[in-house]
């Protein structure tokens, strides 16, 4: 085998590997802009985060705009505080917006649903590091059943 053929085949080998990498990067991996590129941070305090996890999606009307980057407890009452990385493409959430913890489907994973609020002259836009003031916590199934039974008991 001549050196030239060998070089050619090694070239084919490397090209095949690059093609595989491109395939994996473009076709297989998540390449929505919301999770890569420039982001800014919003935080939100909840009473209960349910099954929310780091890297859970943040959605507006079902469209992913960011991801949860950390979950911690703060303050003397140990409130869960959730930090989210939101794509700078979506940087105009008013301070009247609401963050809720929702579940996709009956058994699906939990995510943060952001709902943009109304805008008028007195409403400021949320900046990097700001807190979303209005939140709805996760619905915990056990509490819900408890409440239901309790209300049944009162009626009966």
């Amino acid at each position, binding site marked *: 085998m001549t*050196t030239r053929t*060998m*070089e050619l*085949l*090694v070239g*084919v*080998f*490397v090209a*095949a*590997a690059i*093609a*595989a*990498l491109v*395939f*994996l*990067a473009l*076709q*297989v*991996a*998540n*390449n*929505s802009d919301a*999770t*890569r590129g420039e982001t800014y941070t919003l935080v939100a305090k909840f009473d209960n985060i349910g099954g929310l996890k780091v*890297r859970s999606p943040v959605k507006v009307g079902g469209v992913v705009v960011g991801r949860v980057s950390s979950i911690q407890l703060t303050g003397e009452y140990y409130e869960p505080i959730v930090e989210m990385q939101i794509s700078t493409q979506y940087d105009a959430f008013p301070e009247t917006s609401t963050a809720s913890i929702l579940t996709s489907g009956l058994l699906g994973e939990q995510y943060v649903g952001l709902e943009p609020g109304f805008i008028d002259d007195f409403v400021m836009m949320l900046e990097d590091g700001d807190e979303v003031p209005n939140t709805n916590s996760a619905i915990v199934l056990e509490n819900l059943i408890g409440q239901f039974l309790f209300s049944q008991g009162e009626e009966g």
Partner: protein
Amino acid sequence: MINALVKLGRNTLSVLAGVGSASIMLFQSIVGKPQPLKMFPLLIRQLYVVGVQSMLIILISGLFIGMVLGLQGYTILVDFGAEQALGPMVSLSLLRELGPVVTALLFAGRAGSALTAEIGLMKATEQLSSLEMMAVDPLRRVVAPRFWAGFISMPLLALMFSAIGIYGGFIVGVQWLGVDDGAFWSVMQANVEWGQDILNGFIKSLVFALVVTWIALYKGYTAEPTSPGISAATTQTVVYSSLAVLGLDFVLTAIMFS
């Protein structure tokens, strides 16, 4: 009891001595003044022997493993009405685990054993000694290009393995069993992360490449220069590198994905 402890101690010491001398060998071969002009043609040749010649077995195995994953995954997921999750199931198992691990195992069997046998034979026929007497360092001349070729090829082979495996899963899942085309790719894309899955899998295969190539070269270089010695060294290469890959895979998975 005492005897067992003595044996344990002796074995531990000999393993440590082996790791030590293997490290010295690797260090002496790859550390030093680089000579790109001399190294490059040797590297190309070894990339051909180690990489290109392993490509076929990797591609065929990858395709079949992806197809089996598609088939098995489908029959399980369809019971839960979750056949949409076939895409992420196939791609995540390949990218995180099967791609790096199976590639490393196949590589150890195909290229690792060949490296050990080749170097062992060069030692038995005094080619290594004769290099030394010609004032050419066999570590730099023989071991180093083979090490780099293995270290470079295996991650590339693992990428090909995963890519063609996902395609195999696609063929079985979508073309044959009728999972929705769009759902297959989009659910996959929603669940596969560049950094978390593809990059971590790539790092795994880099680590495996280092370990498998290193074991193969060390076993060849220290082989008893006789026929039974070389065949024993070849077997040891396959056994040790397979065990090392599976053990390290657990450790890496625990670090990366837990």
